């Protein structure tokens, strides 16, 4: 459908750099987020005494941990978006500028 040489772009050092930096960053964040999320049901299910520990008046560890899940989720999303907007988009834009000319 198009005569763009995709194999050429795929092998281009700039694309390889984008791929390497992006995948390492992305899968690390994904692993952290999934692991952190599952600490909640695992903790509540298997370590109820820890979750019942009172920290601050009626606030117990379980409530603080559940709130922290929101902060971690928002934090990971914000870190990813900032990083992607700054670094990946710039690399992608360079590649676009360089190869957009090869459109049929």
């Amino acid at each position, binding site marked *: 459908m198009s005569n763009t040489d995709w194999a050429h772009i795929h092998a281009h050092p700039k694309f390889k750099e984008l791929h390497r930096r992006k995948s390492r960053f992305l899968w690390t964040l994904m692993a952290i987020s999934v692991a952190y999320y599952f600490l909640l049901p695992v903790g509540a299910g298997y370590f109820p005494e820890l979750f019942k520990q009172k920290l601050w008046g009626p606030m117990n560890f379980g409530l603080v941990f559940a709130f922290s899940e929101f902060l971690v989720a928002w934090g990971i*999303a914000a870190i990813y978006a900032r990083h992607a907007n700054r670094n990946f988009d710039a690399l992608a834009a360079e590649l676009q500028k360089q190869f957009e000319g090869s459109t049929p």
Partner: protein
Amino acid sequence: MKRKSGLVVAGLVAAFPAAAQGAVSAEYKWLTFLVFGVIIALTMFVTYLAARRVKSTAQFYAAGRSVTGIQNGWAIAGDYLSAASFLGIAGLISLYGYDGFMYSVGWLVAYITVLLVIAEPCRNIGKYTLGDILAFRNDPKTAKTLAAVSTITVSIFYLTAQMVGGGVLVKTLIGIDYEVSVVAVGVLMLAYVVFGGMVATTWVQIIKAVLLVSASLLLVFFTWMPYGFSLPGFLQAAVDNPGIQAQVAKLLGDPATAMSAQELGQRFLEPGLYLKNPIDQISLGLALVFGTAGMPHILMRFFTVPTAKDARTSVLWAMGIIGGFYVLTLFLGLGAAMNVGSATISGIDAGGNMAAPLLAQYIGGGADSILGNLFLAFVAAVAFATIVAVVAGLVLASASAMSHDLWVGVIKGAKATQAQEVRAARISSVIVGVIAIVIGILAKGQNVAHLVALAFAVAASSNLPAVLLTLYWKRCNTRGIALGMIVGAASAIGLVLVSPNMTYPNAVRTTNEPIVAARTTSIDAANAEMLADPARRAEIEARVVKLTAERAAAQAKIDAVAGQTRSLVGLEAPLIGLKNPGILSIPLGFLCVIFGSLLMREKRSEDMWEELYVRQNTGLHAEAASAH
């Protein structure tokens, strides 16, 4: 305020002689209809404006790819926050405390998967449907057929839960007949989708999300204000609340007798009152975290923005709105438990769905005040708008799969003019809409709550493995996605069919027969007491009415399974203890995609890999926003 609460609760109980009347009392129904009318008029106006723009397929399926990131974020929240989130989670918290709040977390974390691995690639290589993504490297006809079948299956499960839940909800709130409200939801939703396509659907979802968030903020403001907006102060009030202490004592049974009032109250803020099986929790968590990213109506939202950056922005906004909303829900649930009382809430609806509406009525001044009824009317109208917006998104996703994937992609061999395809999409919307209405009416009285979890489990076990491996694994091919999607979906559905979610007549009898017997004994005892002490007649009579209602409810459950000994699939008892199949079916789906792909090499899917991978990462040749 505290002292007033006892009076208000008594007032509420008096206002609901039977739930059949609806929560809104007859003299204030006009208020509810007025608020409904304003919301419907607003959305219809938006649809009218949209209908003039929707001429091309890009407009109908993807709103011309000109939705901004922020708008799309609100629309995703509107698409995602169903009545189950708004009313269901607040209800769970009002009845079970901490576990309800914990349950809400997975629904937010799900968006990390959407953001990191799905949103941008879908925007960069996608066109209108899940089928388009799968057909990029795989055999187009096979991929589109599979995607369409899967999209329609997942959407119908989710739709059924929404239609039945919506019908029950509208009946409980304003007393309109179940069938009438199902048809009303269906017709209204069809008007948006058929005339306004994705443009109108997007705006209906945005309007609904804004209404939902404003209603919740308003309620939380007034609920939290008496405690000077202090979190420990608010939580301490919950711990000190006698109603909450009584609710915990009721849930715990015998072990509660050894606990002090403070311990009982504190227990409400600790895990384990509702969610008993951690493995089931993890299994549900997996279905949410991986299923959301495979939900066709969510995926479809990423085709409406102009660039990958906007796709990212939209997830950020959606996560802010959805997460913020769940935090508010904690206050709504605890506030309802404190001010309305867990017993009153579960008395009107066993699932707790009336917690937020009743809290609204309380905050406005109670059942006899005009402000209280205005608040209740507003929340009822928001709940209605919520159902319509979610259903519209689902119907649009299934109709697109039917017209774009099946009719144009498979039957017409991708040869159809824009006008023909838009017409096909409108006809498909009507077909899906009518199916939704018919299923909604047929499923009246069925327990469909677990269908939501099943929809997520199927999406996580079938769609997500296929999409993820198509996007990120070079060797993935048609055979792989075919095997994975079929086995993933079939195993998720199959496991649920043999799980404790189904109705097992013998178990229903063993649970309910003792209840009937016990209530009969209590009624006889109460009647004897009444003879002995006529002065307490009124109080005892009220107790007898309650006991008789409980006995009738248990008897109705026994009668419903009379003469049966086996479940729908012919089992006397569940084969597995797991209610959520994800922990088994998701890995199975992934393994089958991998195994099927490795069986034989496929030239096209490997040849197309470099193009797909470059395009999804760079946005080269991505579908552009259409000019208008």
